[in-house]
């Protein structure tokens, strides 16, 4: 009498195996792709923020020399007239 497992035939389960490995490799791949997307978004944010910061600085620099002169006080006044 043979032990039970020897009497059993090997099941054909290639499809399940491929499905399984598609998941096991696909999920981490998707996850890493999501990193690159997050990174790209962050880099875009950073770029925007840096240009904003630069504008801020430039404006501050432009304002400084006029700041010292008495003409500066007139400046806010002519803005509404222009619009």
């Amino acid at each position, binding site marked *: 009498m043979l032990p039970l497992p020897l009497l059993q035939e090997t099941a*054909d*389960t290639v499809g399940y195996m491929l499905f399984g490995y598609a998941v096991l490799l696909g999920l981490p791949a998707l996850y890493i792709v999501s990193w690159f997307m997050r990174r790209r978004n962050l880099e875009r944010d950073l770029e925007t923020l840096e240009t904003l910061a630069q504008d801020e600085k430039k404006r501050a620099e432009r304002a400084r020399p006029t700041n010292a002169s008495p003409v500066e006080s007139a400046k806010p006044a002519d803005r509404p007239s222009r619009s």
Partner: protein
Amino acid sequence: MPKASRSVQLLNIVTAVLMLIALGLVFLYAPRERVMGEVQRIFYFHVPSAWLSFTAFVVTAVAGAVYLRTARPFWDQVASSSVEIGLLFTIMATVSGSIWARPAWNTWWTWDPRLTTYTIMALIYVAYLMLRQGIEDPERRARFAAVYGIVGVISVPITWFSIRWWRTIHPVVIGSGSATAEGGFDMTSKMLTTFLFANLAFTFLYATLLVNRVRLARFSERVEQLKARLLAA
């Protein structure tokens, strides 16, 4: 984002090579299992995913504890990164296990206690991420997440020991009697080599993912800080 340092690049390459070798062993070296056939090959990646998910959550708790002691944001970044990767591994283990269970147990899912507890563990760490999302203040968010991460990890040994408390059809991999449970099998030495190598490769995979995810987290923190500074100005 700053470029990866030389050592991180090296780690990335080593991990990629190890994963490729592991895949080669799984498909070309390991023998076909006699009863279940090819699907048994899922085992070599399924079990390391599950083990590394536990590791990831333990790392979260430890990093959380270190954060509570030191209050350095770096440790919070490690903790939250590790949760994300742990959840990735949890999903990989669950889905691949389900695909394996279909031919082996003739069902996609059973309410086997270990599966159930594993799912509950996943829910704990989903809750962890939701808690983080619900708190604005970064300092408080880190503190609360650390506390919850530590509370949550208490459930991980429960998951592990639950197999002794309830009867289960999930086979115990290492130890005696593994072949008697339905869906279990005896490992030949080639299978064992493949399995051990896959565990090594997955450990490297976890470490690499963690290192790179923390890099992303640090970059994200920098952008957030700049944003906060500009808004305040």
